[in-house]
């Protein structure tokens, strides 16, 4: 490892590595630094780069169901047209939007409420926080089975409770009903992930200066005004990142709908991801599934762009 490069990079001193130097020269100067990143890059190129390329390629082909990819036929953009024209596309997209927006919104609101309520020191606060975090830690598979049992149409405890409190005259069939299935799944998802929002926002709350809140209080601001005008503006960037991460996670979530309903009944809880899985591994239509993936990919990249922007705003400010 060259000492000169090391020191130049070491201090991160802009004066030592002048912007004027040619890109090639800078790359050569820094060649040793790449060694540190190389293992990660190689692994990722194989397992991420290749699949992305392959998915895009497959999306342009009609693929045989037996996975003999050498028999695939080039069809151009036909797969995309098939998807966009298909009758189910609109419903599945609508489900995806409801699922993503509903889960994200409520998980965020519950998390915000929890974070604000837990901000003040009190006895048992740590225990409470730990308990609330457990659903986030356990596997979504476990969560799905537990909730499937809670929702069970004959012996489910939620239905039984509803009868007990006379909200319903017989056990409710949550998961086999076209109208109740998606909200029921969203509740499970919220259960699973609201504490993520809580933790993020609790960390964000610590950046709110106490003096400001006190000053506002002295000036006669009530609790709501203190929250809206002092606390919330400080939470803006954390909220941004949290909402985006939740959105991405929800957009991509597969386990809960897959295990609990498999997209049913009659596609009422089918979202993009379950649809793609069904197309690929249920109906062996890899080309169409790939095209679907590419569309999803584009949506994700758009979200990703905002994510990175929200995330690096602080980074750049700090780096100067």
């Amino acid at each position, binding site marked *: 490892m060259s000492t000169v490069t090391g020191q130049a990079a070491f201090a991160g001193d802009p004066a030592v590595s002048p912007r004027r130097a040619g890109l090639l020269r800078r790359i050569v100067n820094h060649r040793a630094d790449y060694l540190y990143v190389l293992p*990660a890059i190689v*692994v990722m190129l194989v397992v991420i780069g290749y699949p992305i390329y392959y998915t895009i390629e497959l999306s342009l082909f009609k693929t045989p169901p037996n996975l003999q990819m050498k028999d695939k036929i080039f069809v151009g953009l036909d797969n995309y047209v098939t998807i966009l024209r298909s009758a189910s596309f609109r419903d599945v997209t609508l489900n995806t939007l409801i699922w993503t927006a509903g889960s994200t919104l409520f998980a965020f609101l519950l998390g915000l409420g929890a974070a604000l309520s837990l901000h003040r020191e009190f006895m048992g606060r740590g225990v409470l926080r730990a308990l609330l975090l457990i659903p986030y830690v356990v596997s979504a598979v476990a969560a799905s089975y*537990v909730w499937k049992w809670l929702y069970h149409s004959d012996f489910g405890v939620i239905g039984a409770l509803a*009868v007990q409190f006379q909200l319903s005259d017989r056990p409710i069939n949550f998961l086999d009903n076209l109208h109740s299935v998606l909200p029921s799944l969203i509740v499970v998802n919220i259960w699973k992930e609201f504490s993520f929002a809580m933790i993020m926002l609790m*960390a964000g709350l610590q950046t709110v200066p106490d003096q400001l809140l006190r000053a506002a209080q002295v000036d006669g601001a009530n609790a709501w005004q203190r929250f809206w005008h002092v606390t919330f503006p400080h939470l803006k960037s954390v909220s941004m990142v949290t909402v985006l991460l939740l959105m991405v996670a929800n957009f*991509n979530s597969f386990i809960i709908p897959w295990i609990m309903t498999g997209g049913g009944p009659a596609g009422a809880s089918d979202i993009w991801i379950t649809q793609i899985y069904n197309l690929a591994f249920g109906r062996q239509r890899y080309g169409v599934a*790939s095209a679907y993936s590419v569309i999803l990919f584009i949506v994700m990249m758009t*979200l990703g762009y905002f*994510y990175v922007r929200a995330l690096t705003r602080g980074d750049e400010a700090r780096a100067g």
Partner: protein
Amino acid sequence: MTDATFSSRAITKRPIDWWRWSGRVFLVFLLLFTVLPMVWMVLTSIKTQFAAMQYPPQWWPAEPTLQNYARLLDPSNSVGQEFLRYFWNSFYVALTTTVIGVVVAVPAAYAFSRFRFPGRTFLFFSVLLRNMFPAVVFLMPLFLLMRWLGLVNTHGSLILTYLTFGLPLSIWLLKGFYDNIPIQLEQAARIDGATRFQAFILIVMPLSSPGIIATSIFSFIGAWNEYVYAYTFLSKQESMTLPVGIQRFFTEFATDWPGLMAATFLMSVPVVVLFLVLQKYFVRALTEGAVKN
């Protein structure tokens, strides 16, 4: 100081703080929402099959029994054998992924934190953007890739996949920890004659151990809980991990709900224990990077 005592006294003097009370009520609601499903899982797991299938349900098991657990943990019957095998597979895959992942992520994170090489930002964002990609998108090409590599139905396929998908997050987490270690410490070591590598091993590594612990917990929990790839790559029963195995296991008997609840309980124990013991690191890892101080 006087200001602080003054204002806190002002708060306590108020008759009723409605906001505080609504916060408490809200927390009670959240606690019930979070805990009741878990309580019902445990209650069901200590019922017999017959007791679980009653309407109205037995709110409290009339004859609590541990037979469901005993059956799952007893290696002498076939159910127990299968379950323990899945358990071991999950453990093996998660541990291997974690160890290799840390070994690869540490130098990368260090480089991202310390060096300013061309392409650094680009590489870094590509690392970061990985968080955005749904597993299902990669499933098909990876499945074909694994078939080509002859890794289908092996734990190697899962370890390789988890490794890759865990890496971006690991690097990102670790970078946050390295950013907080003052460069001056290394510089001092270098002046005293240490090579960069020595400075890294002797100074930076020990200081970043909280970061390494946090990252390890994350990747272990992630690998332990992973379902989609395991579900697709593994079709042989003896190589299955818990999330997949559990499903196979119980759909055969259709509705052994108490058994299933006992199995999900046992499956959750390792991650919950790990989380509770190392909670501080876990929470820090979760928020690291997203919240700038």
